[in-house]
């Protein structure tokens, strides 16, 4: 009998996750491991990678690499056996008012959030297409975008520029890769209880600004985002491509 509720699992799938040392990336590695994926975790911080490895009882491959190091990341990806899922997650933010944005901040964000994200998406897609039965097996790419990929917020011109860009990349890639049965989507969270957001939210005014803009009255958890990413990665989402899952407690519905 046909199951009307599909099982969300990643058995026999290999997932590469960038920015896996902290926050959403780390939680996604844990969630995907839980539902059976083989994980390749990429991050800059050795100590954090070791802690993740320990958490998952060594059943995970960790590789230390800065996603901005094109030579290194391309070598790493080329040397892998296979990739079925990419969680293109590494990203950063340097909030500044538009008139005060430093040239160096602009370049940092464009390098990491846009160029490195594009390069890794392309390198991983090349790898995915190496599998002969890709069309039958399918593939899934998830970009970590943001609600600021859909709407603006104060001091976030550069961040919004890069995340709106990711939304465009998602749709363009989805259209180009559909014939190979590789699906491409993004997740757009509101503020999530990550180490980075916790720093912002420690500021009372900022906390008030954030919570008063979320109709559900709470920020998202790392698990909320990791679960949505895991769903998109799995065959349970096999008709979902070129779209975003917005995990924002209603922020952008206003």
């Amino acid at each position: 009998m046909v199951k009307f509720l599909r099982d969300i699992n990643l058995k026999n799938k290999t997932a590469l996750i960038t920015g896996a040392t902290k926050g959403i990336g780390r939680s996604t590695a844990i969630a995907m491991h839980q539902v059976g994926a083989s994980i390749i975790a990429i991050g800059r911080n050795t100590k954090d990678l070791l802690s993740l490895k320990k958490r998952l009882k060594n059943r995970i491959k960790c590789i230390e690499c800065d996603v901005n190091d094109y030579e290194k990341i391309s070598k790493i990806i080329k040397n892998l056996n296979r990739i079925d899922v990419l969680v293109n997650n590494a990203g950063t933010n340097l909030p500044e008012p538009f008139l005060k944005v430093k040239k160096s901040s602009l370049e940092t964000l464009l390098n990491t959030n846009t160029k490195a994200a594009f390069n890794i998406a392309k390198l991983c897609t090349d790898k995915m297409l190496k599998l002969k039965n890709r069309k039958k097996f399918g593939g899934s790419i998830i970009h970590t975008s943001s609600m600021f990929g859909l709407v603006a917020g104060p001091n976030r011109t550069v961040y919004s520029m890069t995340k709106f860009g990711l939304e465009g990349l998602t749709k363009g890639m989805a259209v180009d890769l559909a014939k190979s049965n590789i699906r491409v989507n993004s997740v757009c969270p509101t503020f999530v209880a990550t180490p980075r957001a916790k720093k912002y939210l420690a500021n009372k005014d900022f906390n008030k600004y954030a919570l008063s803009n979320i109709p559900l009255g709470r920020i998202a958890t790392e698990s909320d985002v990791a679960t949505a990413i895991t769903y998109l990665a799995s065959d349970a989402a096999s008709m979902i491509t070129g779209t975003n899952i917005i995990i924002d407690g209603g922020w952008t519905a206003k």
Partner: protein
Amino acid sequence: MFKKIDLKNKTALVTGAGKGLGKACAIALAEAGAKVIIISRTLSDLIKVEKLIKKTKGSCLKFECDITDIDKFKIILKKIKRLDILVNNAGNNRPEHFTQVKKENMEYLVELNMKAAFNVAQMCSQKMVELKSRKKVGGSIINMSSQLGRVGAPIRSVYNMTKFGVEGLTRGMALELGKYNIRVNSMCPTFVETPMVKNFFKNKKFKQQVLENIPLGRVAQENDVSTAVAFLAADSSSSITGTSFMVDGGWTAK
């Protein structure tokens, strides 16, 4: 952590549950552990769906009701102890060229897809809010929309009007019900292999046009949609509200 789709101890009401997507959603919610209340105009259909739900060892209550009959629907709700989930699914389509749309068809679709959908949503929300611990337990409403709630299509002006309306209703409801922890989202599928669509596809030219517009090159299956509805119904999506969940194979990404 991955948050599994689990609807134990939840009661869900599904309208238009006799056939197609409504039937698929009702069974999927039962497979996830929910008690399901199924509503349809056609008793013989309800009896068949009830049998399928019992096969999943799920529990089910059935009520024959045309949802445009508010008074009858109100009486049904009085017989129900509690409600945690609504799949506001009943709807119809009468494709006609804009200049040829018959007044009676326009009125029928507005009555059913908008007015009845609104009334059902309002009455069910009132029921949901009655539970004292609602804020803690949470609630979820899924309005059945369509990809044609986001983009236009030939001979679908009335359908477009009603489904864009459902998108607006979803956002408005999400803002107002956020404080009760009731989440409201819409489901936007592309063409799904339902009895209604199979009928449209007897026209070969139409079928070809549809497939050319879906980058993934295939129509959705009922369980693509019912799985996504179960995800939105469950606490797996506890920070997702006021959004449109696209299951369209990339149709709207273009």
